């Protein structure tokens, strides 16, 4: 993909001979003609984001279930995921290469690792904020701890869990622009091939923001569909 895009750009500059393009400017016409070239990287970007967020959610959820009734686990898990959150993604790609090699998987691992803290913290906060009275009533009416968790605590924690996933998703869209360094592709690839060409840079930036906005909207929509009680409550 890399050499191909480079060629595209070169032929364009020579062929069209447009002034704007030659000056690396911002050229709406060029963007219109070449938007198709961004489809594949965009799809790959989407894949990176979705896989990382889903994987991050699954792992964070498992960790949260482990820690929910064993509060002492919260501190070490927050600490460990905090370190993963702190390590710069570029550095993490570099560190992962000897272990997982170049490719999609490495990109996903780094992005997933990055998501864990935000999602874990929000799941815990969501569970902590379930009204004590609802839990007491549920237990008092004869629900087992697992029933309380499934029927009361988790449903009531959904808003905060979704909030965490939304933050993770928009952040991952931005971070995935660096995944090309791990050989995982994404919108960072066309970006860097033509890094001085403003039309290219702007197109990638806008595509990222649009992708994030669309995913955010979908999550918001899913949340509203899943939570009829939130719509009607005052």
């Amino acid at each position, binding site marked *: 993909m890399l050499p191909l895009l480079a060629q595209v750009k070169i032929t364009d500059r020579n062929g069209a001979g447009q002034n704007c393009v030659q000056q*690396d400017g911002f050229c709406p016409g060029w963007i219109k003609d070449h938007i198709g070239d961004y489809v594949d990287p965009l799809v790959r970007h989407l894949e990176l984001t979705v896989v990382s967020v889903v994987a991050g959610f699954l792992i964070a959820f498992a960790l949260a279930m482990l820690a929910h009734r064993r509060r002492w686990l*919260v*501190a070490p898990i*927050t*600490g460990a995921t*905090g*370190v993963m*959150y*702190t*390590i*710069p*993604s*570029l*550095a*993490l*790609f*570099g*560190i992962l*290469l*000897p*272990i997982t090699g170049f490719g999609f998987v490495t990109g996903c691992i780094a992005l997933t690792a990055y998501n864990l*803290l*935000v999602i874990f*913290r*929000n799941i*815990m*906060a969501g569970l*902590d*904020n379930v009204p004590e009275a609802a839990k007491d009533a549920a237990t008092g009416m004869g629900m087992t701890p697992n029933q309380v968790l499934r029927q009361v605590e988790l449903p009531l924690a959904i808003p*905060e869990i979704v*909030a965490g996933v939304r*933050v993770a998703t*928009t*952040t991952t*869209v*931005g*971070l*995935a*622009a*660096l995944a090309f*360094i791990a050989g995982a592709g994404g*919108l*960072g690839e066309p*970006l*860097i091939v033509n*890094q*001085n*060409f*403003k039309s290219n*840079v*702007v197109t*990638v*930036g806008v595509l*990222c*923001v649009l*992708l*994030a*906005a669309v995913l955010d909207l979908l999550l918001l929509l899913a949340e509203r569909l899943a939570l009829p009680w939130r719509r009607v409550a005052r």
Partner: protein
Amino acid sequence: MSLPLTVASALSDFGDGLDFLVHQRDSVAGGVQVGGAKNLPLLSEHLKVVGLSMLFAILIAVPLGLYLGHTKRGQFVASSISNVGRSVPAIALVLFFSSYLGLELKNLVFAMTLLAIPPIFTNAYVGVRQVDEDVVDAARGMGLTGVQVVRRVELPLALPLVFGGIRTSVVNVIATATLGPYVGVLTLGDPIINTSVYGDDGRIGTAILVAALAVLAEVLFAAIQRAVTPAPLRPARQGLRGLRRGRPTLAQVADTPA
């Protein structure tokens, strides 16, 4: 490859990486010396970029956040900044500004200042907004002026969050500074990006170094944040990052390192 072998070879690679940090050697293509002491200019350039960006970001974001928080204006601005900013790739922003302003240190610093402002601004804003209305009211009732209210009541109570924002931004900026080589500023990102010059050892070694820098900054600023938190407000235990239980504040949710 079986798992133990993977781990063994990875550890060996990490060893080579650490060796790069300590011992100078020829570049891959030869002709240039890399590694060891030759890393120092990269490190100093990295820290310079981080320091300058943070300085400007703090000078702009803290007063602005405190002011808007104090006057209770700009709720919309505060929340949009933290939400929209998240999905813009740092690298796109860095490249964009450099393509206009040229390949220079000051242009990288400009882009990174922009990236560093939102978390600090949001936290300063939220920090002041969350100060108990009654406390402010009591302070006014005792005759404190607006400036005195900010200096003696709102600022001390908001300071922990302000430093929380700075802490988030420092980690962001340390990460983003690795993108410097793309716009002609040779930071610690150079060996990570230009493997053809530095080799795999260089990539792994500096990656470890940058990760260590980020974690170090995180721990350092967590300590500072704790130190400026009035004792009664301190959480019982403070780990690497916000171990506070309960609802994450807007500021925590707004954490957006690159």
